[in-house]
C-alpha cells in the first residue's frame, strides 16, 4: 500500500458511526474503521451480514453525513454507484436512465457500453419490462457511463442465479480492467470478491472495523480452484489472528 496519499486514491477513516435506537440508546455500527484504496485498483469489503457494510457505503457516497471521521474521495469525487436494487427510474427508458445519470457521456461511449453489457436491444424498453439481471446491467451501464473517479458496487449480484451472476461478474471484471476505475465492492461472497478484487478488506462483526487487508496476486486472472483455496486459507488465518 503506498503511504503517500495520491490524488486518485480513496482514503477512509471513520472514528465512529452510531444510530439512535427506538428505545433511546445508542447503537454503534462502525468504530475505528480505516482503509486506503490505491488509484485504479479494486477493493472488496467482505464481512458478515449486518456488520454495517451498507452504512459504510452510505457514508463514503455522501448520502449519510452524520458520522465522526473523514472520507477523501479520489480526484474530483465523481461517483458511479450500483445499489443492491437497480434503482432505475421506472418512467424513463433504459437509455434515458443512463443519460440522466451521465449527461456528459457521448453517443459512442454509450453505444460501446450497451454493446458490452448486451443491452443493445433494450435501449427503448422501460425498466418494468426487464428482468432483474437486465436491470442490474442497466445500473452497471449507468455507473460506468459517468466515468467515475470512484465506482461503488453494493452487492451487485445478490439474488441472481449462479450462472447469471458468474457471467455478469465476468463482464464487470472486463469493464473494470479496461477502464481502470478505482472500485469499491461490497459483498458477503468471498469467491466473488476473490474473482474481482486487487485486495480484500475483511470487516469484523458490528461494530465493524477492518481486521485484515489481503492483497490478491494476479487479480481478475481467473483463479484456479487451488489458488482460491490458498487465498481462503490466508483469510481464515488473518481472521484467526484477530480472534474473530
Amino acid at each position, binding site marked *: 500500500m503506498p503511504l503517500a496519499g495520491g490524488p486518485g486514491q480513496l482514503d477512509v477513516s471513520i472514528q465512529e458511526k452510531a444510530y439512535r435506537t427506538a428505545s433511546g440508546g445508542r447503537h454503534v455500527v462502525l468504530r475505528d474503521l480505516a482503509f486506503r484504496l490505491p488509484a485504479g485498483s479494486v477493493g472488496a469489503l467482505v464481512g458478515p451480514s449486518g456488520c454495517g457494510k451498507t452504512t459504510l457505503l452510505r457514508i463514503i457516497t455522501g448520502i449519510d453525513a452524520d458520522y465522526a471521521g473523514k472520507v477523501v474521495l479520489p480526484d474530483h469525487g465523481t461517483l458511479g*454507484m450500483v445499489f443492491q436494487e437497480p434503482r432505475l427510474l421506472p418512467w*424513463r427508458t433504459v437509455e434515458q436512465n443512463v443519460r440522466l445519470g451521465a449527461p456528459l457521456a457521448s453517443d459512442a461511449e454509450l453505444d460501446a457500453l450497451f454493446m458490452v453489457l448486451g443491452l443493445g436491444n433494450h435501449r427503448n424498453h422501460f425498466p*418494468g419490462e426487464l428482468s432483474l439481471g437486465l436491470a442490474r446491467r442497466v445500473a452497471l451501464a449507468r455507473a460506468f457511463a459517468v466515468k467515475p473517479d470512484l465506482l461503488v458496487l453494493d452487492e451487485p449480484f445478490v439474488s441472481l442465479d449462479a450462472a447469471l451472476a458468474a457471467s455478469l461478474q465476468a463482464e464487470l471484471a472486463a469493464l473494470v480492467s479496461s477502464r481502470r476505475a478505482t472500485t469499491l465492492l461490497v459483498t458477503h461472497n468471498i469467491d466473488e470478491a476473490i474473482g474481482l478484487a486487487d485486495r480484500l478488506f475483511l470487516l469484523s462483526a458490528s461494530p465493524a472495523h477492518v481486521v485484515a487487508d489481503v492483497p490478491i496476486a494476479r487479480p481478475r486472472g481467473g483463479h484456479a480452484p487451488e489458488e482460491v483455496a490458498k487465498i481462503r486459507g490466508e483469510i481464515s488465518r488473518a481472521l484467526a489472528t484477530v480472534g474473530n
Partner: protein
Amino acid sequence: MNLAARLFSLGLMVAIWYVAAEFAGSRVLPGPQSVGLALLAEAQSGALAFNLGATLVRVMVSFVIAMALGTALGLWMGRSTVVDRLADPWLVALLNLPALVIIVLAYVWAGLTETAAIAAVALNKLPNATVTVREGARALDRQLDEMAQVYRMGSWTRLRHVLIPQLEPYLAAATRSGLSLVWKIVLIVELLGRPNGVGFEIGVAFQLFDVTRILAYAIAFVLVMLAVETFLVQPIERHASRWRPRAA
C-alpha cells in the same frame, strides 16, 4: 362498441328530455330543438364564443395558479414535519370555508375586478390540490432520492425526471377533481361580479326566466369541458403513464 354504447346512452338522454319537455311545457322545460336553435342563434351572433372564451380563460388561469401553488405547498408540507404542523390548521380552515364566503370577501376586499375573481377561484381549489399532493409527497421513494444525490443530478433534472413522475397519479387526481370544481366556481364568480362569461349570461337568463338560454349555455360549456377532457387531459395522462405495463 364503446363508442356505440356512448352514443346510445346520449341518444337515450335526449329522447327522455324530448318526452319530458312535451309533458312539462316549453316555459319550464324547453325541448332539445328549441335549445338547439337558441344555441345556434347565440353562436351566430358571436356571443357564445365570446362568453365561452371569457369563462374558459378564467378557468385555465385560476386552475394553473391553484395547481402550481397547491403542488408547491403540498410538497413542502409532505417533506417537512414542521411546515406540515404549522400549515395544517390553515389548510383545514381553508378547506372548510364555503366557496361563497371566499368569493364575496374577495370582491369586498379587492373590488369587482378580474384579479379578485381569479384569486377567489384559485383559493377555493388550492387546499384540494395541496392535500392531494401532500399525500404524494409522503409516498416519495427515498431510494430514488439517494440515487439522484449520488449521481449529482441537478435540481431541474430531479424535479422533472424523479419528482414529478412520482407525483403523477396524485397530480392527475387533483387535475380531474380540480377542473370540474374550478369551472363550477368560475360560474358563480361570474354570476356575482363579472360583466361577461357563461355565469353572467346564466344570471341574466335567470332574471328573465329564460330556461332555454340557461340550458343552451350550460350544454355548450359542458361540451367544451368534455373536449378539454378528451383532447387534452386524457392524452397527457396516456403519455405520462406510457411506461406502466398494460393491464391484461
